[in-house]
């Protein structure tokens, strides 16, 4: 009976851990199969252990080129979306202006729209304008769908800011520019950083919108998509595993820094 009681009390924990396992299982598979030496063109069945892919990560034609293209697009899209989104967020929180409702729904709608709809409609625009599909059309699309997410992240942070801090700065004879740079921006920084990170992740990993608007340009997700048809090189798993490890290490480092700061204060 004590076992049954223990089970009933911890049922939620067990169910939660099962879900966590479901979420992490593909990452385990990706990592394990980065050490595989597949027989055919596809890396879906385990054959034998090998370090080949890890010692030669760029050994597949075009893969590292697509990776660096994706990184470049993600970087520029992050910068563009973060600047534009932060400006909108400040305007929404700090100022009264007309047509606020329309502005809010214009920002909300891209997040509530299936990607394929945005992708298809943007392609009709580009086709009608006779635009050359490639780097610039991808960048335009990425800034467009990242923008709303940045606005949401920054808005949440600016809303929770105490306006008296800025009033205090102005009472101490700081000008509007000085107040913004020395007080407002540092307080809003975590929100801006969160928005920028989200934009980078969304842009880097985007497939559906990119696939419609890329023309013959190949980003990393498009390379993976193509390889699912032609044959999956082990190097894809190497990149996936490396990205996972780097990201987790960065998050852990950020957490440690945050903890130390909290202790110092």
């Amino acid at each position, binding site marked *: 009976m004590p076992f049954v009681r223990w089970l009933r009390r911890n049922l939620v924990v067990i169910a*939660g851990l099962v879900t966590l396992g479901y979420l992490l299982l593909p*990452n385990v598979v990706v990592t394990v199969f980065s050490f595989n030496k597949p027989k055919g063109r596809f890396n879906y*069945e385990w054959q034998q252990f090998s370090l080949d892919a890890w010692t030669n990560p760029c050994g597949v034609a075009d893969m590292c080129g697509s990776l660096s293209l994706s990184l470049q697009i993600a970087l520029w899209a992050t910068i563009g979306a973060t600047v534009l989104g932060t400006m909108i967020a400040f305007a929404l929180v700090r100022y009264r202006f007309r047509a606020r409702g329309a502005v809010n729904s214009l920002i909300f709608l891209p997040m509530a729209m299936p990607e394929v709809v945005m992708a298809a409609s943007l392609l009709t625009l580009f086709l009608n304008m006779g635009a050359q599909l490639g780097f610039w059309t991808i960048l335009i699309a990425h800034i467009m769908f990242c*923008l709303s997410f940045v606005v949401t992240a920054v808005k949440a942070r600016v809303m929770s800011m105490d306006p008296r801090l800025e009033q205090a700065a102005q009472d101490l004879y700081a000008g509007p520019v000085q107040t913004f740079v020395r007080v407002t921006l540092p307080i809003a920084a975590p929100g801006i950083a969160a928005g920028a990170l989200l934009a980078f*992740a969304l842009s880097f990993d985007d497939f559906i919108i990119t696939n419609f608007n890329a023309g013959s340009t190949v980003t990393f997700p498009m390379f993976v998509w193509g390889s699912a048809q032609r044959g999956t090189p082990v190097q894809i798993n190497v990149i*996936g595993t490396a990205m996972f490890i780097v990201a987790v290490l960065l998050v852990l480092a950020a957490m440690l820094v945050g903890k130390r700061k909290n202790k110092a204060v």
Partner: protein
Amino acid sequence: MTTVTDIPAAPAVKTARPPRKRGRLVPYWLLLPGLLWLVVFFALPMVYQASTSIQTGSLEDGFKVTWHFATYWDALGDYWPQFLRSVLYAGAATILCLALGYPLAYLIAFRAGRWRNVVLILVIAPFFTSFLIRTLAWKTILSDSGPVVSTLNTLHILDVTSWIGMTDGDRVLATPLAVICGLTYNFLPFMILPLYTSLERIDGRLHEAAGDLYATPATTFRKVTFPLSMPGVVSGTLLTFIPAAGDYVNADLLGSTDTRMVGNVIQTQFLRILDYPTAAALSFILMAAILIMVTVYIRRSGTEDLV
């Protein structure tokens, strides 16, 4: 005389007026570039798409607006199974996400203790590996000779799922079950995070109060925890259902021609067959259907459950 009165007045006007005028315009200058971007590259394309959907013509001769609304009926007549499938698969994935995600969100919010941040990171971490690579990993997990399929076979679960048409014989890959499994997996974090946010806000003293009033844990959950987590349930289901209904990656990588969803049709019409009017009409129907469903859902949950 006039010069005397003008002199003190002039600086007053100079100092008082310009800042007020600038201040009034500041929000518009802040909004302008971002909103212009959204208008040109989000709203305007919708207009172009609407116009494309009522055009007729061919690639060689070009397309012209002919108010040909029949495209909508033809598209619905030809592709209603794909529409139905999209709604069914996305609905099933959303329910599975809620059933799987709720315990995990609850665990993070109330039971994880000092492990809370670690578990949260583990929920977000898969995002950092390209979702296409992770979806391809399901091909390995669900492969015909893999441990998952043989376990399901031994437990005769596949017999049941085959009977309701979710799987096909001894296979899981290339069946509806595989697609739903992939959709559930891909959008699960979008369910967990809003659920966690709303669960985390619940005052722990409410649970104690319910216990003090002789509520069993189950009653406490039913009467206190779950109603208070409704905002998370609503936004989680929306964040799962909307992208799942428009997705075509899972149906393509894990499914077969019998599991094609509306996203697959739009993609092939647009990028391979180059039948732009049909593709635009399908995309418009999908958008309208989702907007209507979302509005109804928000209204309902807003008035009945959130109060």
